[in-house]
């Protein structure tokens, strides 16, 4: 079952912010993450799909049925909320059984199905505990079991990992993905954490100011961002403003950079993108795009080292495995990508 959003528009009366003609589709079994800075409209998109807000324009189809204007309770969507929204007066088992009770499933069957759902999320031993007696990760798993127990048409995740600490977040990320794969359900995951989105999703939608900037696979998003904002928002990036000076040459503040300009005429304003892991340290003399400078920041991150090399006209951000001194770097021409200015 799929989720299709077509030209969805919405505007908050007071704030003026909202959503401007957003279209995206999540195929059956697909995991789509929506990322963007605060106020970009990602939560609004989720509320519109869930039915908590009514769009000014556009259509929402869930599992092939037009759900625009249908009340939330009839949309058959499983939703995991940021704070989990577990009912405090019900045990874990009662929480998971609740949607089945609403659907008129008999007591014995719903308890059995809720028990199985808890078992799948490795919580069968905690079925009789109340939410306040569970850890954040355990509450998260109960919320996930509750959202999936009634075989919903799609799964919506509203920043469900933001309340967890870093150690639990990574583990829960994998667990959510495993459960989602097991159910083969179309999933829309709203998050502000781009690393989380890249690691968990089949495709990622990047939003800004109510508009969808790019919808692509994590690899494509990282390697071929649509514009400067996406390049800067997804991962670390060196972004140099420049002007095409001739065939395969761009003039920037740090100096001329050789790169494929794709036949752009001289004088075209562009932005050059170089990912920090592409920057090479201590290149041999005479190579192109070489820069000598002073190390101004050096961060040891365990598996790698991230540094800022101040060069005339700017700073180059690089990543390396080397522990030695860094005086000069090279940005290989093949690793530079031209973006619209």
């Amino acid at each position, binding site marked *: 079952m799929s989720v299709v959003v077509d030209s969805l528009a919405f505007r908050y009366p007071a704030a003026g912010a909202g959503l401007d003609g957003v279209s995206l589709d999540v195929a059956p079994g697909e995991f789509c993450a929506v990322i963007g800075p605060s106020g970009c409209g990602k939560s609004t998109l989720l509320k519109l799909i*869930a039915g*908590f807000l009514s769009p000014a324009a556009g259509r929402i189809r869930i599992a092939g049925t037009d759900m625009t204007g249908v*009340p*939330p*309770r*009839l*949309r*058959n*969507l*499983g*939703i995991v*909320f940021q*704070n989990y*929204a577990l*009912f*405090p*007066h*019900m*045990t874990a*088992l*009662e929480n998971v*059984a*609740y*949607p089945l*009770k*609403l*659907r008129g499933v008999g*007591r014995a069957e719903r*308890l059995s199905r*809720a028990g199985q759902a808890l078992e799948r999320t490795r919580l069968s031993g905690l079925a009789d505990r*109340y939410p306040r007696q569970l850890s954040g990760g355990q509450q998260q798993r109960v919320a996930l079991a*509750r959202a999936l127990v*009634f075989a919903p048409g799609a799964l919506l995740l509203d920043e469900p990992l933001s309340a967890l600490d870093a150690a639990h977040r990574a583990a829960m990320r994998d667990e959510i993905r495993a459960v989602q794969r097991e159910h083969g359900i179309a999933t829309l995951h709203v998050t502000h954490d781009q690393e989380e989105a890249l690691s968990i999703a089949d495709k990622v939608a990047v939003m800004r100011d109510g508009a969808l900037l790019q919808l692509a696979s994590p690899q494509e998003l990282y390697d071929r961002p649509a514009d400067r904002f996406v390049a800067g928002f997804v991962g670390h990036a060196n972004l140099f403003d420049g002007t095409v000076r001739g065939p395969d040459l761009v003039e920037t503040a740090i100096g001329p950079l050789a790169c494929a300009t794709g036949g752009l005429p001289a004088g075209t304003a562009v932005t050059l993108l170089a990912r920090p892991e592409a920057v090479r340290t201590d290149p041999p003399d005479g190579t192109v795009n070489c820069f000598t400078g002073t190390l101004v920041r050096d961060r040891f991150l365990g598996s790698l080292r991230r540094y800022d090399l101040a060069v005339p006209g700017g700073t180059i951000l690089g990543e390396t495995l080397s522990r030695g001194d860094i005086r000069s770097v090279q940005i290989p021409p093949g690793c530079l990508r031209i973006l619209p200015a």
Partner: protein
Amino acid sequence: MPIVTALYLLYLAAPIALLAIGSVGQSWTNSLLPSGLTAGWYGQLWSDASFRRAFTVSLTVCAATCAVTALIGVPLAYAIYGASRRGVRAAARVLFLLPVAAPPLVLGFGFILVFSSDSLPFLGSGWLLVAGHVVSTLPYLMQALVADMRHLDLVTLETAAESLGAGFRQRLFGIVIPSLRQSLSSGLIMVAALSIGEFQLSNLIAGFLSRPYPVVLLQAFYGATGFACAGTMLLLLLAVLSALASASAGRGLPSRKGTPS
């Protein structure tokens, strides 16, 4: 710090202890403690028809006040909590806190003016007494409920229930009221305690046959000290019993620790 706490607790407990001692003392005139031991004052209290009637009136008014405040308080608190505009929320808060800010005398005179006219001749009736107690105790229940709704993030709980397929009635009786069980229970304890001890307003608007216990108790202070002490001890007992009854009534709401549903 422990010494200050101990002194404060002593300060709180001393009058109650003296009342308890006085209620079983035979004679207490110009001395630190009474002389002699008797249970006669309690006997006299029980044999006095006006005290017995007042006792019943107080319990009835208290039960009715608790029921009415619960019926009004939950939807009203929910409306205030759910009001989207800050101005509406602020205005509602001022309105429901007004009876706390206004002296009971003001409220009492207002009741006398309104309900002693020919068109509304209800002054002295039991129901008017209940209405007066509801007005003066409702803010305390509302405070507890609205604070709990905010603490629970009730809107999100309702949203979650709705997304799972719950209609309005299912959300109200399956999620909202059971979630508020503790604050409703503690709020009703306060309502019961306040209603049982309420004197100023009751003294102004109660009829001769609907006088609650504190109003009748005032008479006891014109008589023997032992009788007054016994009467006051009974009021204390009445307040504790009412609070316990309202607390257990609150717990009787849809189960918070029930069997899997």
